[in-house]
Each structure stands twice: as structure tokens, then as C-alpha cells.
């Protein structure tokens, strides 16, 4: 908090508002004579309730946001009938989803078919617990936070696989196979990109990572990892892999509707389908949240004189920016093909990820400064340039020349 | 067709493919697109010749279709001399010629290389019931594959040597050939009542049958 926060008390009080609210409720309960274990339980419940409701709100917003953004990109208006500016559209959608008939194919494996949507939504919620939302606002302080993220996010592929397999539909099966192969392949670059940050920070805890990015270079440029050569490369890798991991366009092959109808979700309807839907958006928020925490300075303000705005507002603003970029990408790019996707992961991103590690190591040794810049750039640029040349040769990307007959 | 008249093509074909039955069928209409009737026996050879001959190069089978010619009676007024009671009378008389029915497969060939055409080639079956096999030109013109299937589907001409002769548009168990002139649609549709009396009658009949009428026509 700088002196500015004193002049703007609203922001100052907002900074600690969520924590203060929790403390107030707890204090009130304590005054009522509640026993200690019960208070602890309530405290946990309140934290959970807090981010549960925030993220559900965000999910509701996201579907509205996505529709609006896509519509605007496509020169349409988007939802504008339900509520002001269509803001109640997600609720209408929810009601629609809930009132739809729940169809389970006769031949399906009914237990797994029912388990899959529940299982797919769990990892997102679990991963949310360790996100640092603001200063002292990590719901679960975990020493190995980033490991938890990777551990639970692998459960997604299991759920997708269960959904595809249990539906006993060829499209579902194909979609599930794709999903598993894809998530498995992109897990690796995701871990590599995160490892570079772990190397620099020397900790697996997300809070520590965010705190390591505090401070400003020359008083203006924030010390975020994304503003370093390795950090930028790792961020790009992380973001691309995160898109692939959460099945977003252009990597939405598992559900690629133009070839596989809806992939693993083909045989789902009603509320179960809605759960897949929710998990997609929540997954998007979670991966964006991790990208923010790892590379974009978490809840740190981008400019020193902006620190008066509460940290959690910054965090969510950054998440929303990344989410917007993801939606923008969705509005622009067509879907890649499955073998291209795998080639991209194994032949391009992963080698580059190893080089990012090298670069980060160099940076770690050479230190933040001109020397670090000079030494850590070549291990990134040279392989990038070589690989781009090697793979670019397969296509006439520069444009073809066409003959004309009179 | 600039330099090559249909007649000269017929002559070339006769020259090149021995024992080829080629007959010129003139077109009386304003379009003047004459056609060649070729015998089924040598049809594939003739087609291959038409495709490969460097001057003809009809390498592109644009259109393949069937035509149904049911048995018909052509009435023609002819002037005939007749001897009646020793006298020679001259008078008009109606002569009825019975033309047996047949099915026809018509190919419109063009040349993409030399940019001329069309050459209309016809193949005729023996009759409309049993003798309906024609040689398939799909081995020569790959583009005829689906169209020959369609002709088989709609007219019932069986193409010998076709790689995959199945029905194209109708379903497999469909019995009839819906493009033949004597085809009558089976009366099994679910008619929707319209103002037309005839259709309305049918609709009423059918809805009386199934008992769960889709709305009362009355």
C-alpha cells in the first residue's frame, strides 16, 4: 500500500474486505460461544464458499462474456433479450439445461456415464483452492501447490476418457482417445513451463512465486516473469498448452464438432452436459489463474502507482484478460488436426520447453540484468529459428503462385 | 463441334473398331445434336477408342442418363396404292408400326483436351423387362460411376462391369424403377389433407386406416 491508499479509503478498505468479512463472521460466532473446532470448520467453509461463489459467478459471466465476445467479433449482437444486455442469458441457459431430459444410452455403462461429469468438474474446484487470489488470500496454503495442480488436472483426462468410453458411441470413443492423447501430450510442456518458474523461484508454492514477482525494475517495469526472455517463452508455452489442456479452440479436437459431432460429450444431455460445459469454463479460469500467478505477477499491480487498487481485483482483472484472449483466439482460428497437434507438442513445444529450462538456468546464474538478457536469449531463439525453418519447409506458407488461362 | 461432324466420327469408329455397330441418329430439333447409337457388344472398345484417339480425345463423360422408351405404336399416314377389284386405287392409309420398348443409356462425351463436344452416344437394351444389361463404361470413364448407378437405380439398366452397382438414391429394398414411364407411385404415403379433392380423399382413407389421424381433415 502506498500513500495513495490513504487518500482513497474505499480501495484500502476493499483490499482486505473479503478477509475482514470472514474474520467478522468468525468473531461473531466466537462471541456466541461456539467451540474451537466448529470455528475452524466454519472458517474453512467460508473460504470454500467464497471462492465457490466467486467462481460460479465467474462461470456464469464467462458464458455470457464468451457469447458476447464471439458475437461482437462476428459482427453480431450476442445475447440481448434476457435481462439487461442479455446478462440473464446464462440463467436461462441453466434453466434450459436443467429441464432437459437426461438421456442415457441403453448400451452405455451407466455408472461410469454418470460418474464422468462429476469427476470432470472436481479437478477445477480442487485446483482453485490453491490459487493466490490476493495478498494473504490463498484459501489453502500448500507447500507443493503447483504439484497439486498437475496432479489433479490429470484427473480431467480420466473423466474425459470415462465419458467417452462409457457412452459406447464411436464418436465419443474417438473423442476420448483424442482427448487422452492430447492432454497427455500437453501435460508435459505445461510442467516444463512451470518448472522454469520453480527453478527461478526455488519454491513449489504459488504464493512464493507471486511474491517473487513483486517489485519494479527502474520503478516502472514490473518484475513479472513474462518480461524475461525465458519467462515470455514459458508463458507462451504455458498458455498454448493450457488451451490444449482445457480443450479450447483451436485445440478442441476431442469435441471437434465438425468431425466428431461432440466427441466425448455426444451422448450427454441435460444437466450432465451442463457439467461438462461448466468444467470447460472453470478449467479455463483455473489455467488462466495459474498462468497469471506463474508469469503475470499474480495479484501484483502492473505499475507502482496503481497498487492502491486491491490485489484481488488485479488478480481477477488479469484472469479476465487472459480469458478474453482465449475467446479471441476461439473467434479467430480454425481447429488444428490431430496429428499436427501431436507433432506440435512433441516436436516443437517440448524441445523448446527444454530450451526454456536451459535459458532459465542461464538467467538464474547470470542474474537479472543485461548479461542475463544476452545469455538467455540464444538458447531460445536459435532452436526456435531452426525448428521453424525445418517445419516450415513442409508448406508453401509464403503463398502460391497461380497460373491463369486466358 | 467444329471440325468433327458426328458422321465423320461414326466413320472413324467403324474404321478403328472392327465389327462395331454404329448408327447415326439424327436430331430433328433446332439443337441439331445428333447422336451415335452403338452396339452393346463393342461399346467399351468404342468408348476407349473415343477417349484415346488423339484427334477425338473424348476424355470427359459429362452426362450419363437413361431414357425409357416403352412399347409404342406409331401411326403414320402413308400414301399407298391398293388394288381393289382390279382397279388401282390411290389413297391415304394409316399404317401402325409397333415399336418394341427398350431402355436407353445416353452418354454425353466432351473433350477437355481438345475442347470439343458434345458427342452423344446411346446404348440400347434389348427390351424393358429381361434383357436390360448393358456394358458399363465406368472402366473407361470413371466419372460415369455414380451416374450409371443412378441409371440403374431409376431405370433398371444393369451395367455389366460396374465396380459397385448398387442403388444410389432409392433404398436397397425398393422394388420398382421410379423413372420409368409406366411407374406408378405406390399409394402408401401419408397424405396431408389439402384443398384438392383427390388428395383429400386419399388422406382420409389413409387416416382412417391408422386410426390416429394427424389432425382431422374435416
Amino acid at each position, binding site marked *: 500500500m502506498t500513500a495513495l491508499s490513504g487518500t482513497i479509503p474505499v480501495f484500502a478498505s476493499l483490499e482486505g474486505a473479503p478477509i475482514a468479512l470472514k474474520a467478522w463472521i468468525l468473531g461473531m460466532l466466537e462471541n456466541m460461544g461456539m467451540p474451537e473446532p466448529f470455528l475452524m470448520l466454519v472458517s474453512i467453509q467460508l473460504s470454500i464458499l467464497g471462492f465457490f461463489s466467486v467462481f460460479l459467478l465467474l462461470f456464469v459471466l464467462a458464458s455470457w462474456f464468451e457469447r458476447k465476445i*464471439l458475437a461482437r467479433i*462476428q459482427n453480431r449482437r450476442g445475447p440481448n433479450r434476457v435481462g439487461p444486455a442479455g446478462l440473464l442469458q446464462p440463467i436461462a441457459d441453466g434453466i434450459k439445461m436443467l429441464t432437459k431430459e437426461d438421456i442415457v444410452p441403453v448400451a452405455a455403462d451407466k455408472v461410469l456415464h454418470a460418474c464422468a461429469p462429476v469427476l470432470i468438474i472436481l479437478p477445477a474446484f480442487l485446483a482453485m483452492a490453491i490459487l493466490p487470489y490476493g495478498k494473504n488470500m490463498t484459501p489453502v496454503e500448500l507447500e507443493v501447490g503447483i504439484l497439486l495442480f498437475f496432479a489433479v488436472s490429470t484427473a480431467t483426462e480420466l473423466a474425459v476418457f470415462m465419458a467417452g468410453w462409457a457412452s459406447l458411441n*464411436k464418436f465419443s*470413443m*474417438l473423442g476420448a482417445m483424442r482427448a487422452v492423447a492430447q492432454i497427455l501430450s500437453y501435460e508435459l510442456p505445461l510442467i516444463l513451463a512451470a518448472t522454469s518458474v520453480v527453478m527461478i523461484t526455488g519454491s513449489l508454492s504459488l504464493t512464493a512465486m507471486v511474491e517473487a514477482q513483486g517489485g519494479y525494475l527502474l520503478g516502472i517495469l514490473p518484475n513479472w516473469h513474462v518480461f524475461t526472455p525465458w519467462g515470455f517463452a514459458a508463458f507462451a508455452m504455458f498458455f498454448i498448452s493450457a488451451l490444449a489442456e482445457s480443450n479450447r*479452440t*483451436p485445440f*478442441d479436437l476431442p469435441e471437434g*464438432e*465438425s*468431425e*466428431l*459431432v461432440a466427441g466425448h460429450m455426444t451422448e450427454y444431455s441435460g444437466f450432465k452436459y451442463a457439467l461438462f460445459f461448466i468444467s470447460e469454463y472453470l478449467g479455463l479460469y483455473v489455467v488462466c489463474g495459474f498462468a497469471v500467478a506463474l508469469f503475470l505477477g499474480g495479484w501484483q499491480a502492473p505499475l507502482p502507482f496503481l497498487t492502491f487498487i486491491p490485489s484481488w481485483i488485479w488478480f481477477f482483472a488479469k484472469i479476465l484478460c487472459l480469458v478474453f484472449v482465449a475467446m479471441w483466439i*476461439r*473467434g*479467430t*482460428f*480454425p481447429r*488444428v*488436426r490431430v496429428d*499436427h497437434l501431436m507433432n506440435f507438442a512433441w516436436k516443437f513445444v517440448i524441445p523448446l520447453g527444454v530450451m526454456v529450462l536451459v535459458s532459465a538456468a542461464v538467467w538464474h546464474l547470470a542474474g537479472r540484468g543485461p548479461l542475463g538478457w544476452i545469455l538467455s536469449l540464444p538458447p531460445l531463439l536459435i532452436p526456435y529459428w531452426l525448428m521453424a525453418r525445418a517445419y516450415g519447409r*513442409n*508448406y*508453401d*506458407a509464403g*503463398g*502460391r503462385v*497461380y*497460373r491463369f*488461362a*486466358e | 463441334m467444329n471440325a468433327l461432324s458426328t458422321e465423320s466420327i461414326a466413320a472413324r469408329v467403324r474404321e478403328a473398331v472392327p465389327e462395331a455397330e454404329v448408327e447415326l441418329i439424327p*436430331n430433328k*430439333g*433446332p*439443337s441439331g*445434336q445428333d447422336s451415335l447409337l452403338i452396339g452393346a457388344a463393342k461399346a467399351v472398345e468404342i468408348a476407349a477408342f473415343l477417349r484415346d484417339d488423339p484427334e477425338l480425345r473424348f*476424355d*470427359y463423360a*459429362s*452426362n450419363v*442418363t437413361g*431414357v425409357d422408351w416403352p412399347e409404342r405404336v406409331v401411326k403414320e399416314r402413308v400414301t399407298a396404292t391398293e388394288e381393289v377389284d382390279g382397279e388401282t386405287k390411290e389413297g391415304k392409309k394409316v399404317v401402325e408400326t409397333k415399336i418394341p420398348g427398350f431402355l436407353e443409356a445416353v452418354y*454425353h462425351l466432351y473433350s477437355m483436351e481438345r475442347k470439343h463436344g*458434345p458427342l*452423344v452416344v446411346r446404348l440400347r437394351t434389348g427390351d424393358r423387362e429381361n434383357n436390360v444389361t448393358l456394358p458399363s463404361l465406368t472402366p473407361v*470413364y470413371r*466419372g460415369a*460411376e*455414380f*451416374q450409371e448407378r443412378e441409371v440403374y437405380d431409376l431405370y433398371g439398366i444393369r451395367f455389366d462391369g*460396374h*465396380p*459397385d452397382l*448398387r*442403388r444410389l438414391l*432409392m*433404398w*436397397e*429394398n425398393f422394388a420398382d424403377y421410379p*423413372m420409368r414411364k409406366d411407374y406408378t407411385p405406390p399409394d402408401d404415403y401419408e397424405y396431408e389433407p389439402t384443398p384438392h379433392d383427390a388428395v383429400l380423399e386419399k388422406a382420409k382413407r389413409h387416416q382412417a386406416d391408422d386410426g390416429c389421424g394427424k389432425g382431422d381433415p374435416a
Partner: protein
Amino acid sequence: MNPPSETGSPSPNPAESPRYRTAGYDSDAQLLEVSLGPQHPSTHGVFRMNVALDGEDVVKLKPVFGYLHRNHEQIAEQVSYLGSMPYTDRLDYFCSLSNNWAYAAAVEKLAGIDVPERAEYIRVITSELTRLVNHTSFLGFMLSDMGAWGTVLMYAFREREKILDLFESLTGSRMMGNYMRFGGCRCDLPPGWLEQARKVVDGYPAFLDEMESLIATNEIVISRTQRIGRLPADKAVNGSMTGPCLRASGVNYDIRKVDRYGIYDRFEFRVPLGDHGDCYDRLMIRFLEMRETLKILRPALRDIPEGPVMDPKARQRNLRPPEGEAYARVEAPKGELGFYLISDASDKPYRYRVRPPSLINLTLLEDLCLGEKIADVMVILGTIDIVLGEVDR
């Protein structure tokens, strides 16, 4: 209607014919048979493909048609010559005016009817606008097939809408034109139509530039279309491929140039040809064709003469062409659209046959798709650009 079934084929067993043997797969254990369609997001209608997959690779692909079959030819043989005209709109419902022209041309050939000059110009203008409509929406659908979430489709439809507005103010209907008549066109251009059309045509290059930078240089599009579904020229010719797909394979065959029907010899335009015959070429040829089409439209809109739009001698009702037959074809946006008519001097055609480019271009679909990935099947099918109204008729 019963769905066409796969079993009980009366013909030689397809599995025995060499072309359909799935080489190298001694057992079916590894193959996954998938039925794409008839209700599938990207088959562009009720069209089905029986696909056998080995992993993601296509080893067998059989198109199945007939879900939209309405025996158009039989209907046309039972109504008058004029009565078939509105039905031709519904063949390829994106290009109703080209279809109109093809049918009108066939009847004119059959009955020997002349077309006045102004009508010829209108026909060229409308049919070239139709080409723009078709190719534009083709780009949109194509990118949707690749999974681009309709952004390109929306841009394409935004532009298509302008032309459809033109069509509406000219023919009264946006898609079902039913505009051309034997010996001319149904009505003259409404006042101000030419200016409006010029405005649309002038605005088109900017749109094409935008689309080209959005599509043609997009890495994902390039990697998904280049070297996919290659079609060599000789195979294309033998398989009766027509239209942009044929020219993408490098065969210089444009009926506007070859037959010089209508008044196309008055316009200077070029025929773009591709060298690779892959999906990217098929995509780009359509871009280039649209640019050439604009080259036709500009002088046509400028030079259109005054005069009648109908041959006064031509009659629509009770048209009884002399006995004979005629085959007329035009370069429809999707390929060669031909009408083959036999007249027996009555007021109904004795034989009425449509040569549908969509159906015949599909002949080579299996050849294009074999060995490609399942996702490519959609792209290849997309680049062939079919409309089911025309395939099934």
C-alpha cells in the same frame, strides 16, 4: 422413407472389387466403422458417409445418398416446361439463378428461341453474382468445417446478404429466384438496381482482401489444406470433376471459355488454375475466381444496353418444342450444370435430366480421402462444395 441400407446389395459384392479392398488390413479387428451423417454437423445436409477408420486414418469411405431424393426429374416430366423452372431453384439452392439459366438455355436450344441482348447481360450479371454468393458462403462453410466457430461464416454471410438483397429486389426472393424464362428474363431490373449492384461490386475487393488475409495466410488453414486431398489432373478429367475443383488440378476447362455461351466472349477474364490439386488450391481458386468474376461484373454493369428483356416471340405457357433433344450446360459455381431434354412435341418434356455437378464431383470423394485423417474428410468434402438439394434431387 426407409433409410438406404447397406446390406443386400444385388450387385457384385463391392468388397470383391479391387478398388474397395482395404489393402493391408487382413482383419477388421483394427478398423472402426463410423457412419458420418446423415445427421452430422458438417455433412452440409442429409448426407452420409460410411467410413472405416484405422485410428484416425481413413481406409474406406462410401458416400450414401438419397435422403433428400424427391425425384425431381420425374416431377419435371409431369409438369409443363415452365412449371419446372421454380423446381430448378431448389436444386442448388445457393445458385438458383445459374440453375435457371441452365434450364432456360436447354429449353431455348430445344425450341430454338433467341434471347434479347439486355436479357443476356442480366443473365451474366445475375449468374456471376450467384458465383460470388456461392464462393463466399463456401469459404464460410469451409472454415466452419475446420472448426473456426463461424466467424468467417458470419463475415461471408454479411457479404452474401448484400447480394441476396440485390436478388430480392430483382427477383422477389432471396434464394429461390425463379427469374429466367425461355427467351429472356421474367422482369426488367428495378430502378436503381444497377447502382446498387455497382456499389456491392465495388465493395467486394476489400472484403476479399480481408478474407484472404484471414484465411489464406493463416498457418492452421495452410497446414490443414496444403497437400491434403490431392487430385491429379488426369484423374480429375476421367472422374468428370468439373468446376473449381477441376481447375485446381490444373485443367484449363471453363465452360464460359469453352462454349462461349451467352455473351461471355465479350468479357475479358482469366481462368485461374492450380498446380497442386490439393484443398488449398481448391480454396484459393475460388478466391481468384471471385476476383475474375468482379472483372466480368464491372463491364457488364457498365455496358448493359437498354431494350426488352424478353423475346416477344417466346411463349411460356403451352410451350411445345419440336421433337428432338438438346443438352445445354453452363458453368455453374460448383461445376458443369447441364440439362438434357427430350421433347416429343407435347407441352411436357419427354425426358428431363439434370447433370448435377455436386453429385458427379463426389465420384472421386473416396479417392481423395483414402489415407487422409478423418478431420481431413470434412475439409475435402468442404472443398468439393456440395449442396444436397442437387446431389439427391
